[in-house]
């Protein structure tokens, strides 16, 4: 009722509450819109499970709304498509003999993490059983009780989406996040090591990050720091980016790096992948609004930031090198999508355009630096997701519109904004970035050290030279003699 007044009105308690909300939002220019935004943004920040048991008077029980739940189901399908999209994006960059292995490092996680999430990932991220601000619990393993006996129960007080659609939606995020890391490790990592790395990283790094930021934990708006992260600037992009940086450093460069590098084997794959990512990002950011009526802005901010970033990247290339490149256009678009992720529901279009431009410049410079110091983050996973996520998270602190960060859904964040403005929120976001870098960096290193000491991280130089498609999977992507 709060976010989606339906025909026929509601009980008087809700009407009273609605008047209360009108009062709270009196200063806002578009109260109707903001009113939707309040709920949706809070939902986007993943506060729902916490709210279920919280004492926040603002949140009342509402029935499940069909349109809003449909948005989540549609959004889940969109986000799922990002993983094969990423597989094409990454696969296009590698040599022809490694393309299947590269694509499998993403694609396979739709299997592995798809199961892990249902069995335990969701519970570790969004259950409150352990009562900890850093990790969830075990009470919702196997999605036990999520969505009620018919799957249609609302997720939590104040939210009109079904619990089951939320769990599915979050699962798609859990799948693509470790897939992003693979960009730093392609063409040399042992697939068995990748299997165990994704599994362990997902449980011990991703789930705590999701809990801390979205599950009512330490970093998020109900926790100590009061940080707002709309769709995963910290949880997804900084986490994946930092893990990519650390793992590229530990696993080491490809034996062909940097002297015998080959250009991308299939640039059209890269464009296809970037297109699918952009399409899927409408679910990733847009559906993180958690309600259909007000999701237009988060869809729009997502798209315009990607447009601006692509434009910026291509213009830089055009001025510097004389030609805009297809790979640059694809990279710029992805950088823009990364940058707007933490901000998509907290800003208006001018801020979204600024974020798109700044993140493109930042990632462009990062990629140049990487090439100059000859660090083999093979497909720029840190340089795009880590740097882009960091810039996006910091700019979200600087540019968040206070009217879009209301106190009942973002108590700590709104308090910071009221007392010390965007600079205060920026400082909180700086702390969150440092904590994420430290936790993810250290945790990733520990996992890799364990795997390195037990099953080994790399394939042999001979296998690397033969090509991982055949070595790891017994397949070849292209075989002209048998076509």
């Amino acid at each position, binding site marked *: 009722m709060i976010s989606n007044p339906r025909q026929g009105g509601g009980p008087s308690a809700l009407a009273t509450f609605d008047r209360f909300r009108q009062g709270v939002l009196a200063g806002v220019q578009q109260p109707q819109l903001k009113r939707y935004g309040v709920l949706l943004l809070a939902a986007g920040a993943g506060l729902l499970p916490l709210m279920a048991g919280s004492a926040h008077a603002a949140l009342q029980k509402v029935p499940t709304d069909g349109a809003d739940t449909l948005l989540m189901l549609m959004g889940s399908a969109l986000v799922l498509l990002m993983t094969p999209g990423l597989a094409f994006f990454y696969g296009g*960059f590698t040599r022809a003999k490694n393309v299947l292995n590269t694509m499998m490092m993403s694609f396979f996680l739709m299997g592995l993490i798809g199961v892990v999430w249902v069995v335990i990932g969701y519970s570790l991220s969004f259950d409150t059983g352990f009562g900890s601000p850093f990790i969830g619990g075990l009470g919702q393993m196997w999605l036990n009780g999520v969505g009620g006996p018919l799957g249609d129960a609302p997720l939590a007080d104040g939210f009109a989406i079904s619990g089951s659609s939320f769990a599915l939606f979050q699962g798609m995020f859990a799948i693509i996040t470790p897939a992003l890391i693979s960009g730093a490790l392609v063409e040399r990592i042992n697939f068995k090591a990748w299997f165990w790395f994704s599994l362990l990283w997902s449980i011990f790094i991703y789930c705590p990050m999701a809990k801390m930021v979205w599950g009512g934990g330490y970093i998020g708006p109900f926790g100590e720091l009061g940080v707002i992260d709309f769709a995963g600037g910290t949880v997804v992009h900084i986490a994946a980016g930092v893990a990519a940086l650390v793992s590229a450093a530990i696993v080491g460069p490809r034996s062909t790096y940097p002297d015998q*590098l*080959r*250009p*991308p084997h299939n640039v059209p794959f890269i464009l296809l992948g970037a297109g699918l990512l952009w399409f899927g990002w409408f679910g990733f950011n847009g559906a993180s609004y958690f309600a259909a009526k007000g999701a237009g802005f988060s869809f729009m901010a997502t798209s315009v930031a990607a447009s601006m970033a692509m434009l910026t990247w291509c213009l830089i290339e055009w001025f510097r*090198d004389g*030609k805009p*490149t297809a*790979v*640059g256009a694809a*990279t710029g678009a992805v950088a823009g999508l990364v940058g707007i992720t933490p901000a998509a529901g907290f800003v208006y279009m001018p801020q979204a355009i600024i974020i798109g431009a700044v993140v493109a410049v930042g990632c462009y410079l990062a*990629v*140049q630096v*990487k*090439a*100059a110091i000859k660090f083999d983050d093979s497909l*720029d996973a840190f340089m795009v997701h880590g740097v882009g996520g960091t810039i996006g998270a910091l700019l979200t602190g600087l540019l968040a519109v206070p009217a879009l960060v209301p106190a009942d859904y973002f108590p700590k964040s709104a308090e910071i904004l009221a007392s010390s403005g965007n600079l205060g929120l920026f400082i909180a976001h700086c702390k969150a970035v440092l904590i994420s870098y430290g936790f993810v960096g250290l945790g990733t290193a520990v996992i890799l050290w364990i795997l390195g000491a037990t099953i080994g991280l790399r394939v042999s130089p001979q296998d690397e030279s033969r090509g991982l498609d055949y070595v790891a999977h017994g397949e070849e992507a292209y075989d002209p003699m048998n076509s």
Partner: protein
Amino acid sequence: MKLIKAILRPGKLDEVKRALVDLDIVGMTAFEVRGFGRQKGQVERYRATEFKVDFLPKVMVEVVVDDEKLDAALATIQQAAQTGEIGDGKIFVLPVENAVRIRTGESGTIAV
């Protein structure tokens, strides 16, 4: 009989084929090949990394002709494939000992 191996710019294949067909030379085989001569390679740039690509894409056409048609064929290919820029390609001529038409078993010049 002679075997003509002509290495051409990829975009010149159709012109060369048409010119040869006009000479009533109606069989040939084309290959996608890569190579370099005086043109050397080209520089490509992906994100921040520059690649020196030495082996450039070319098309190689193989045609077997009667000795009396050889000179006309060579002149035709040379003219049809020429742009005047470095990288137009090369033509090689090799002797051919015999030819067999698989369908009929005919051999010699008639099989070409």
